[in-house]
């Protein structure tokens, strides 16, 4: 350093007050920022007696970030506090090989996620197979499930789901009828509204909508319940009692779903078609008897039967998907919420995928 520069760099000394806690530290930092262009500074801690962690953070900050600010006269309690407090998080070793730069890391992340998803799919399919096995064994041996639990689940899935399923299916029936009526009127084909509503409801909309409602109402509840049980170690407790949780918790739900869905679908079919009858009566003045007479010319029991089969399969997808998410949850309460959301997404995805497969088979 040259002589003239050294002369110009004579630091200005700031004698810090007796009390130097967070408010004083913030004010001091403002002061230092204002003097940024005025040359080097020296902070004199000689009189500082009252301090807190922000004072220690200030010392670190000044030394690490402010090259033109020096600190002097740090002694007594402040010096001891500085020695005993670690103000920096420990430096951690990088977990993986850092090589490859951004594209390498991105590829590694994508590969890791892909492997995770493939493993999850494998576990899901294994669980599906296990559940079919457990239901079969239970029907043969009647062991491993809490007595009366299937009835409880039927009450929850059926009785409590009837009102919402009926309301939404009725509204869907009304909506599809109003939308179609306008087009049919253009061609003078009013009476064919009955055929359209009958086919759409029995084959497609009732199974699909019932499945989606079950995913939102029943599936989410199953995941939340099983995930909470997992977090609270109740599932572990069952296991160490010699109970197979995948059987004890899932079989009653699967049986309840299988038994309750036919009733739910039958009710939903009636209500959905009733929505169409109401619209036909209001829009075209079609009598309900004429509507039904026309409808039965285009739909028969096989349409009802396939709708039923589809909904039972959707119901199983909902129970297995939501049970899978509930039983594979992590150990924190936060993950219960995440698993519940994921279970609804998984259930609806499965329903649409299965519906697509049915479409290929049936049409």
């Amino acid at each position, binding site marked *: 350093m040259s002589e003239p520069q050294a002369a110009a760099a004579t630091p200005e000394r700031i004698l810090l007050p007796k009390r130097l806690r967070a408010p004083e530290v913030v004010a001091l930092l403002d002061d230092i920022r204002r003097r940024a262009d005025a040359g080097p500074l020296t902070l004199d801690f000689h009189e500082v007696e009252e301090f807190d962690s922000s004072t220690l953070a200030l010392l670190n900050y000044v030394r690490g970030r402010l090259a033109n600010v020096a600190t002097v006269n740090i002694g007594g309690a402040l010096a001891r506090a500085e020695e005993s407090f670690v103000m920096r998080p420990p430096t951690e070793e990088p977990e993986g090989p850092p090589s490859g730069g951004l594209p390498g890391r991105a590829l590694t992340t994508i590969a890791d996620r892909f492997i995770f998803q493939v493993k999850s799919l494998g576990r899901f399919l294994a669980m599906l197979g296990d559940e079919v096995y457990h239901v079969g064994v239970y029907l043969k041996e*009647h*062991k*491993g499930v*809490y*007595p009366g639990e299937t009835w409880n689940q039927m009450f929850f899935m059926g009785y409590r789901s009837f009102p919402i399923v009926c309301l939404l299916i009725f509204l869907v029936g009304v909506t599809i009828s109003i939308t179609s009526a306008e087009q049919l009127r253009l061609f003078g084909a009013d009476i064919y509204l009955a055929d359209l509503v009958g086919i759409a409801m029995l084959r497609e909309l009732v199974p699909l909508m019932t499945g989606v409602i079950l995913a939102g109402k029943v599936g989410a509840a199953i995941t939340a319940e099983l995930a909470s*049980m997992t977090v*609270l*170690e*109740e599932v*572990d*407790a*069952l*296991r*160490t*009692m*010699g*109970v197979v949780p995948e059987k*004890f918790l899932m079989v009653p739900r699967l049986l309840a779903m299988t038994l309750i869905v036919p009733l739910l679908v039958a009710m939903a079919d009636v209500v959905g078609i009733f929505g169409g009858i109401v619209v036909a009566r209001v829009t075209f003045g079609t009598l309900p008897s004429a509507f039904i007479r026309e409808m039965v010319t285009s739909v028969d029991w096989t349409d009802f039967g396939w709708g039923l089969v589809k909904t039972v399969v959707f119901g199983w997808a909902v129970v297995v998907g939501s049970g899978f998410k509930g039983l594979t949850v992590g150990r924190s309460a936060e993950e219960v919420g995440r698993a519940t959301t994921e279970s609804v997404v998984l259930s609806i995805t499965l329903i649409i995928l299965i519906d697509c497969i049915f479409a290929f088979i049936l049409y």
Partner: protein
Amino acid sequence: MDIIRARDLTVGYGRTEVLRDLAFTVPEGRITVVLGISGSGKSTLLKTLAGLLPPLGGEFDFAGSRVDYRSEASLRSLYGKIGVLYQGGALLNGLSLFENVALPIRMQHPKMPEDMVRDMVYASLAQVELAGSAEKYPAELSGGMTKRGGLARALVLDPDVVFCDEPSSGLDPITSALLDDLLLRLKETFKMTLVVVTHELRSIERVADSVLVVNDGGLRFSGDYADLAVADDAFIRTFFLRKDSHDDA
């Protein structure tokens, strides 16, 4: 005789090893306390011994037979010989206390007459002084009652070994002392083997016959509680707040 015998046992989650190369025994008919600071791996070790978490390495025998995590029969045999008291009690919320305690009986012996089930459940509840609360649901029980209910459930099928995960955590000193008395009574009356995970000094002093001390990824001490008092280990001295801890640590 030793009821549990571990050799080179490594426990952990996924690829993370929490405790490595453990070699220890659990003597029959005594209370073995697993102690260590929070996060040292006590509960992880207990989960492995209770058949819930496959070991990452090594093996252990239970009552003379090697526990094979890949064999469903081996695990079923293990579950039939143990009872577990979980940290939060882990009672099923949808069932009354009576039904919670009856659950292991109903699942293991579905054909047992209901009168016998009732007698067994009430006998177990009486041991933990909860016979008067049998019809209550877990949500209606206090923390201490929930733990005692969990213990009643763990005891109802007279297991060879009862694992207790931090039985006194979160309890007041009086309830905690009652639980300790109960564990001692179970040992003395039924010659039961208990493995108790805890870091409560008072509990350790009252109930421990033998001790496993885990810390820093390994086993620091394994042996009688009396020997622990003279163990020449800085961590153990600090743990038991001995006067010379700061000087020697």
